[in-house]
């Protein structure tokens, strides 16, 4: 269990994380979402004691991370920034970490195997691809067989096979009763992996919810209607809570009512329909909507969303 209480981090005048409180529970995968620059990495570094909070505190279980006698057994972490000496081999990198806790060589070999790095174990990290580097980081995170796993953007640089592997791994770690806290800037990725979501923007908590609730609350969905009598149909359907936008001539995007009601209304008035397509609200769009006011580089994000 990870608990953040009023975590705040300021760098000079800039506030990276502001009054952030949340709890990450064992047994589920908790996604830590936010646009780039939202303060996810800073928060994770504060949980791990690498950065000290300006205010507030973070605990793992009953105490601060650094206060545990065997931190590696409590928390395994993959940081976003590269945290290895490229001149060492993967095996020796893991051994240097393992020695601090008296973790045997057999465990190092096990995590190398688990992450598919056995064949590359005696190569210098310098020659590793981004994906292999991520796998090595995950091997290091699993080294102490920790009760809590903290992974900062673990799918970065992974190929589709690797992404699938991470999803399976995270779910199995949670199924074993571990606390799994994983950050991403991609809502779509988290929707497939996480059950719980902690969403931040500009260092502030925007939502602390389940994926299911987030999908429900993000809207009932949009129905796309193609008809030659768009104006008439729009007039018949308009009412409180119904939002109708015109896409191209003859195409309506209707929000706030369902396809059945639209179909029956059209039939009653003899309006021909060429298309009637309900679409679930895009999670990514709902996420962007939520974080729109909170993004660090608004122009870039809006440009990408347009």
């Amino acid at each position, binding site marked *: 269990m990870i608990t953040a209480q009023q975590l705040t981090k300021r760098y000079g005048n800039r506030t990276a994380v502001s009054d952030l409180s949340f709890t990450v529970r064992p047994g589920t995968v908790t996604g830590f979402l936010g646009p780039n620059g939202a303060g996810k990495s800073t928060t994770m*570094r504060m949980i*791990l*004691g*690498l*950065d*000290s909070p300006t205010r507030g505190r973070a605990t793992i279980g009953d105490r601060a*991370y*650094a206060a545990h*006698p*065997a*931190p*590696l*057994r409590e928390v395994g*972490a993959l*940081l976003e*920034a*590269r*945290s*290895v*000496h*490229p*001149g*060492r*081999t993967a095996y*020796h*990198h893991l*051994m*240097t*970490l393992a*020695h*601090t*806790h*008296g*973790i*045997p060589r*057999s*465990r190092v070999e*096990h*995590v190398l*195997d*688990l*992450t*598919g*790095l*056995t*064949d*590359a174990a005696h190569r210098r990290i310098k020659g590793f691809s981004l994906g*292999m580097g991520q796998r090595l980081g995950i091997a*290091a995170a*699993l080294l*102490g*067989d920790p009760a809590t796993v903290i992974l900062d953007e673990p799918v970065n640089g992974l190929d589709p*096979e*690797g992404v699938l*592997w991470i999803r*399976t*791994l995270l779910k*199995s*770690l949670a199924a*074993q009763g571990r606390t799994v806290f994983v950050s991403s800037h991609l809502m779509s990725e988290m929707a497939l992996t996480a059950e719980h979501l902690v969403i931040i923007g500009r260092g502030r908590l925007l939502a602390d919810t389940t994926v299911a609730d987030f999908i429900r609350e993000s809207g009932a969905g949009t129905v796309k209607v193609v008809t030659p009598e768009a104006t008439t149909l729009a007039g018949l359907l308009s009412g409180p809570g119904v939002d109708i936008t015109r896409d191209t001539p003859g195409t309506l995007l209707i929000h706030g009512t369902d396809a059945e009601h639209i179909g029956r209304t059209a039939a009653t008035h003899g309006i021909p329909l060429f298309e009637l397509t309900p679409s679930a609200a895009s999670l990514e769009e709902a996420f962007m909507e939520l974080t729109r006011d909170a993004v660090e580089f608004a122009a870039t994000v809006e440009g990408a969303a347009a």
Partner: protein
Amino acid sequence: MTTTATTPTRPNTADRTTPDITPRRVLRSEWHKLWTLRSTWITLALTVVLTVGVGVAITATYESGGGDSDMDAVLLVLLGMQFTQITIGVLGILVTAGEYSTGMIRSSLTVVPRRLPVLWSKAAVLGAVAFTVVLATNFVTFPLAQAFLSDTDQSASLGDPGVVRALVGNAAGLALLGVLALGIGSLIRSVPGSIGVLIGAVMILPEVLAILPYEVTDAVVRHLPAQALMSLTHAQPAPDIASPGSALLSLVLWAAATLATAALLLKRRDV
């Protein structure tokens, strides 16, 4: 690359009963770190080669009554230390600043979040390794170099007064200089920056101070790291150098003060 989606299982090994971080385990980790980098082997090999090479080059061409006649017998043989204080210093810097420039420090301090055991272990391992390697090299270099000096006015043997003390003192001095450099590396967090500070403050500053025409600066300069190291390398007392005891004490204090400052900031600063 093969992907195994096997479920990680909690190992039921006996060591689960005592998985805690201990000073001994952190030492072992730092020992492992030191020897698994090529830069360690290169800087130590250079230290050995430069000590032996310079010692032999100087003594092989030595002639009695030349400019070096009044030089101390051990200092003459170990003049390679002009270079090895840099190789040992660079090794010390790589041990700490090297971790910052690569990012390894984030792993090191995540694994040992109390931080200070990492610094103490680094200093202990580097100090012990540098002392051992330099000491062994000195005990090879001295008899080897003396073979060229047998018929000269610089002829000396290991049994002569002060010779063994100077050979050991030089090794201790270089090891302490290495620890000092390690502290600088931890403070500056950049390899080139630390090397600049080491060369500037430890090797150039004393030369500048020595030019100043004040009595007091002479006394200070004598106790600066590089000068204290030179004093330690003397078998016989000389008029304008510190005594072996006060030279050793100075170096211990320089190294300890730098390391203490590094420890204080290591504990306070974000990584």
